[in-house]
């Protein structure tokens, strides 16, 4: 047993705590973000499809990927 085993335990604990937080909250957070983003995007386009993926790495860093599809973008002159 050495310093590595302690580091391993810390990493394992970090992972456990992160997973505990991610599972219940990421789905709900994703839904809230999605509704906000639909509002935001609809100022500029008709949103056809919107996907929000939330992922956490082992260090608890959150990555949010937004994939939006639209076939009707507003005319730039209308926006101005």
């Amino acid at each position, binding site marked *: *047993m050495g310093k590595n085993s302690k580091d391993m335990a*810390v990493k394992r*604990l970090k992972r456990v705590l992160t997973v505990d937080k991610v599972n219940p909250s990421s789905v709900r957070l994703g839904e809230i973000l999605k509704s906000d983003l639909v509002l935001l995007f609809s100022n500029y386009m008709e949103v056809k499809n919107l996907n929000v993926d939330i992922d956490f790495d082992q260090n608890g860093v959150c990555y949010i990927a937004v994939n939006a599809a639209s076939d009707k973008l507003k005319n730039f002159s209308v926006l101005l």
Partner: protein
Amino acid sequence: MARRIVICSGKGGVGKTAVCANLGMSLAKMGQRTVLIDTDIGLNNLDVAMGVENKVVYDIIDVIENRCRVKQALITDTMYDNLCTLATHGQATNKITGANIKHIVNSLSENFDYILLDCPAGIEVGFHRAVAASDEAIIVTTPHISAIRDADKVISILNNYMINNMSLVINRVRGDLILNYEMLDVGNIVELLGVYAVGVIPENDDISAYASMGVRLKNGSTALEAFDILAKNLINGTRKIYDCTSKFKGVIGKIRRNIKRMV
């Protein structure tokens, strides 16, 4: 107005009742008027930890159900006049609410400086009952992944309550294992849970041995020293931490560590 502090953990067996009892004794020793309330209805043990199990006439359920007044149910400690225990009984009941406990705590608030509520394990109704009556929380954990994980969940739940101050007591810490990198140290736990440590209690055979005999920790015991530091931190708002590793450092300490490993 008394400070109302719930002693909780999530995981069972981490030493909530022992921390509650010994912290209460240290606070009383320092002149603070302290009352300990057992809210673990059905699995009551605070009376045993305090050595007053033979003195229980009325308990918290009798108070709630109006069979006696709060003062009649308080058991004064044999060693400290300013320390009282409010026991509960062994029959589980779901009739008691958080409001009932809060009412009792409010009625005691003017006559005491500290009200410590010994919370049941888990995050079921008993936990919420105790937390609802408190303003502050001490989360007891051990340096083991399962206990820390449960403490983290409890902290998340406590964030939804009006708890002003949350702090950690890390119990059963072994300095020899920390120095051998076989146990998480206090810094790791505090960093991961994001709550400051108000006390660190070393693993000490005296705690369980004396508790079984119904005797108090003796002067000179490392556990007693650690509980006194915890009580001082609570009173003065300081953050001094008992160093569990000190006697295992240096050449003699290394020999101690090796002997402990062999035993």
